[in-house]
């Protein structure tokens, strides 16, 4: 055990410049399109500046129970490997072969969303199972109302009050969802990193209530939106957050326009703008509210919003509040989009046929249930011709896609400033909370004044801001400080840096960080950020292609860290979830069904993280392989083209390169 408790003792002796040299070498490597980058700087030379007690390699628990194979890496690190993360939070992986670059190969077409159909008997049995469940539910309701009126009281009008939730409206929830309630709202504790601790619970009454047993189980977490693995309780970002709590407290006490603005907000907003390559950005304390409170400030009566049919609920919420007209188009179907555009522009506003004031196309960069990537190159072509404004919700794609982690525009190598509005959240890739909107200075200022959140919603809190700044800066890498600005106050320095010529993707200027923030060298030079991007890209591709080779039906783009595996039958959701959780190495998965998906396409949704090691993905693949045989899930590739799970694990590199 003591082997793993190795703490880096060497103080920061390596000059920062060597990191930069290594970094630029890595970059050059990636640009040349050679094999997955393996750079010496990424893992080996990392040294820890602070030898504080915070950086220990393990949980506080004295004895480590590794029966589930999660607490310790399969192989003890050798003397050249120094890991600064806790293996349960962020897995140890020093093999530089297991790295890929997330980017679009120019000239290739963007795969459209294909609904791959399973054999007819699966579809048929899915329909039948819904039918049986609905019939049974109605029978139970019918009998229940007569024999157990007590348990239906809240669904019936009583005492002059209409029921809060009628028995009809809640039928799906009560009679279908309740049956698989154990898959949802599982309470957890600790860090939502590579592993997560679930609070064990049992249901004595067929999922109507859940009782906690008081025990916990550590499980491999392939469910949280932790793409770059910044959900960490230890490490540079958490250290920065700790300092920020001491310096700034928990809250800035109020809304942005009414006494709740802090210098951290200003710094973070300028850093976000720089990260995504826009002129300016604003930050909102909740991701959902970023859409719901700012979309109404962009469009209103007389405007048209064209929205992908699978857009997130927050977009729908915001568009509904705005009062603009809405038209939807088939998910990611550029042909349908173009014909819709031709129709709406030529027809103008309904009845009056006045031209539209503005047309705003709202799409997501990466769709959270399908894993599809927006066909941005095609949209940019359409944008030139049809002059609509483009709003991309990068809630899932920012950080997770692109060779520099700058999102879907980076992935397709499209200049961000040719897009009008980039919106995203900090929940997913940055391990924080809240969201941002980036665009031109005039636009963002307008939103600051006109958006609902400005005067009324609480500002983002300092710890969250700090996590955003620290994680973002470590993806960008921090440029060496400009010597003259050291005396100037941070805000002035930040204003100065804005005059710098535009360069994207740029490093974070040292002045963009609060003065009190010192990131460890591996974060500050961007090498760890880069390694996280490469690990995520590898893991995504490997899991995706691995599942396909095993014969499963999956959706989405291979570069997407969201990998949906189709189950179809409602009953299999529960089984899949439980069989994954009850394995020797427990795995927690997210299963989703109607109404989040269509009625037929119930699915498991894996969210890969940079925190996973190749062995973790192997574990998931092996588990899927076994369960897939039991539950009859392999309906993708035909027998001859499939690979066995051992072959998949051995030929991982080949798969990730597909």
């Amino acid at each position: 055990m003591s082997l793993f408790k190795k703490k880096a003792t060497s103080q920061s002796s390596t000059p920062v410049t060597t990191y930069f040299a290594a970094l630029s070498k890595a970059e050059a490597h990636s640009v040349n399109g050679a094999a997955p980058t393996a750079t010496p700087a990424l893992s080996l030379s990392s040294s820890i500046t602070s030898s504080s007690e915070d950086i220990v390699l393990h949980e506080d628990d004295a004895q480590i129970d590794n029966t589930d194979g999660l607490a310790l890496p399969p192989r003890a690190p050798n003397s050249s490997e120094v890991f600064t993360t806790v293996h349960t939070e962020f897995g140890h992986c020093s093999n530089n072969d297991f790295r890929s670059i997330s980017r679009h190969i120019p000239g290739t077409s963007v795969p459209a969303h294909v609904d791959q159909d399973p054999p007819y008997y699966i579809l048929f049995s899915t329909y039948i199972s819904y039918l049986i469940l609905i019939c049974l539910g109605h029978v139970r309701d019918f009998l229940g109302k007569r024999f157990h009126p007590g348990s239906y009281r809240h669904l019936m009008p009583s005492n002059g009050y209409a029921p809060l939730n009628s028995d009809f409206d809640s039928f799906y929830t009560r009679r279908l969802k309740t049956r698989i309630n154990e898959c949802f709202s599982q309470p957890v504790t600790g860090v939502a990193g590579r592993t997560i601790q679930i609070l064990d619970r049992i249901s004595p009454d067929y999922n109507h209530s859940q009782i906690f047993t008081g025990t916990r189980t550590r499980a491999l977490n392939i469910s949280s939106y932790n793409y770059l693995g910044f959900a960490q309780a230890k490490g540079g970002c958490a250290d920065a957050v700790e300092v920020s709590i001491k310096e700034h407290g928990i809250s800035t006490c109020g809304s942005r326009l009414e006494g709740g603005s802090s210098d951290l907000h200003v710094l973070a907003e300028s850093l976000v703008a720089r990260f995504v390559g826009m002129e300016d950005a604003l930050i909102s304390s909740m991701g959902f509210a970023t859409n719901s409170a700012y979309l109404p400030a962009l469009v209103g009566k007389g405007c048209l919003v064209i929205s992908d049919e699978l857009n997130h609920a927050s977009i729908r919420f915001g568009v509904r509040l705005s009062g603009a007209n809405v038209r939807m188009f088939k998910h990611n179907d550029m042909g349908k989009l173009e014909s819709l555009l031709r129709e709406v522009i030529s027809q103008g506003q309904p009845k009056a046929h006045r031209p539209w004031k503005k047309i705003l196309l709202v799409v997501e960069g990466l769709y959270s249930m399908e894993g599809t990537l927006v066909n941005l190159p095609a949209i940019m072509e359409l944008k030139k011709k049809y002059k609509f404004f483009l709003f991309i919700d990068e809630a899932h794609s920012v950080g997770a896609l692109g060779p520099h982690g700058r999102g879907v525009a980076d992935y397709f190598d499209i200049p961000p400033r040719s897009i009008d509005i980039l919106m995203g959240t900090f929940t997913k890739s940055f391990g924080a909370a809240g969201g941002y909107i980036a665009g031109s200075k005039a636009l963002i200022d307008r939103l600051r004044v006109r958006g609902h959140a400005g005067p009324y919603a609480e500002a983002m809190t300092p710890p969250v801001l700090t996590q955003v700044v620290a994680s973002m800066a470590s993806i960008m890498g921090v440029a060496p400080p400009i010597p003259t600005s050291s005396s100037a106050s941070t805000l002035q320095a930040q204003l100065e840096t804005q005059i710098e010529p535009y360069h994207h993707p740029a490093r974070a200027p040292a002045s963009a960080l609060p003065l009190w923030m010192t990131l460890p060298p591996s974060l500050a030079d961007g090498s760890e950020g880069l390694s996280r991007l490469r690990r995520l890209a590898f893991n995504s591709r490997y899991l995706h292609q691995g599942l396909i080779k095993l014969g499963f039906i999956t959706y989405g783009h291979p570069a997407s860290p969201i990998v949906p595996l189709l189950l179809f039958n409602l009953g299999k959701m529960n089984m899949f979830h439980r069989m994954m959780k009850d394995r020797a190495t427990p795995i927690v998965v997210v299963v989703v069904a109607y109404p989040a998906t269509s009625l037929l396409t119930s699915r498991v949704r894996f969210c890969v993280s940079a925190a996973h090691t190749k062995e973790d993905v192997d574990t998931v693949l092996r588990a899927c392989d076994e369960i897939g045989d039991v539950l009859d899930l392999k309906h993708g590739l035909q027998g001859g083209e499939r690979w066995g799970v051992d072959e998949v694990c051995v030929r991982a590199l080949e798969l990730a390169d597909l």
Partner: protein
Amino acid sequence: MSSSTDGLSAFLSYSLANLESAFSQIPGSAVLVRYVKSSHQNDPGRTILELLLAAFAIFTLLQSRTRAERNGKHFIQFSDKEIEELVDEWTPEPLAAPLTAVEASDLAAVPIVVGQNGPKPTLVKQTSKIIANLASYNFTGLAGKEIIKERAIETLRKYGLGSCGPPGFYGTLDVHMALERDIADFLGAEAAIIYSQGFSTISSVIPAFCKRGDIIVADRGVNFTIQKGIQISRSTVRWYDHNDLKSLEDVLDSVEKERKKRRGPLTRRFIITEGIFEKDGAMTDLPKLIELKYRKKYRLILDESISFGTVGRTGRGLTELYNVPANKVDMLVGSMANGLCAGGGFCAGSQNVIDHQQINGPSFVFSASMPALLAVSGSEGIEILRSSPSILTKLQQNIRVARSILDELDCISIPSHPASPIIHMHIRKPAPLLLHPASAAGGHAHNKPSNPVSVLPRDASKWDWDIDAEERLLQQVVEEALKRGVMITRAKRLRGQEMVEARPSIRLAMTSDLSADEVKKAVKVVSQALKEVLRK
């Protein structure tokens, strides 16, 4: 000619035969054929009917699923060339108009705090020392509590920062459940649910319960986010005069009369109002409201975003102040961001109410849960309020000190309740109000009630204040006070987006973190600034 027809018919009969044999290959096809034959024999009309039905089914299936306006009577058929021309001609308006000079200067004048916000913060562009912050919501001084910071850091070291998931998918932490339990216990409600932003809480709670066809009776002075919640719910809305329970009763009666006349079904009915109004600091008479809602069989959605953590002996809000059990309020909404200096909002109510929101509250279901350390800070804040009632005593004392000075001023009018921690100040117009005593009487004249369907009150047409001019004046007051070291703010409004344009006001937010003397000194500075600017 004839040979080609022959060939065609031969081909047709050949393919028909082929089809027939292929069809007979399908298992069960014989049964189908027999069935069709016999049914045709018995009733040839039925075959036609079934054929029509099948054709209709195919037609319906082939129809576009999206609501195409192509078939509407307003659709104009264009040729491709015409469409190209129209596309070329169309020029959209710019996405966002640049700020006007006034807007830009307002935005630039927003105070930015360096480091920790609190009773005496440091500002970015401020040379003189700030002696008091009466702008930020730090009512009970929890923002600077070291114990909360310590607990937050402990939590950070155990949970990291973000929860990385919505509550349904591994985003529910044990500390979230603990906070929900703490809030429910603190208020005396059966259960509670937490949202990750205070602002988005009630705009999500309302549409979770109020659907199309339901009836909402709401106060005309409700805050912006309630307005948005009502808008998105698509329910039928009736409005009653601001903070006037007599008007509420009238509206409830008229709604009932309407329903009886129409013999409509029993629908869900809600009263939506605030405990202390964000717009002007007025306070609802809760016992009377509760009595009314029970008598008329309405459910009450009460927004305590300002009153939670600020009134009552230990800050439990209006229910504690009026000694009303919290379970009499069906949905009690509050904000941990305002009242506890943490983050997020909550809704407390019966277990059914909470369970319903866990599946139907849009911003609960579709948003990541709040960071663990904010939840723990909230719990810790509740613990502090619970164990030290002196904080609330001190807050109320400071409010009294401020009011005793401000109430003396004749250049302003204060619509806020004497116990309200936020004090709104309007510019008082001395002359016209005295000349028209009838209009000045306002709420007392009930001979002609406002129209409940319209959000605008009856006397809205008589509002004679010039919003822009008053805002400019008040902004001068704000800047004047800031020069003398007191940070205050205008109540910022989204002009043009609110249902009822609130009268411009300066809003003071009191805090228990300043001593009575400091408050006295600060409020005197404010009143000096008011006098100087308004009497010019």
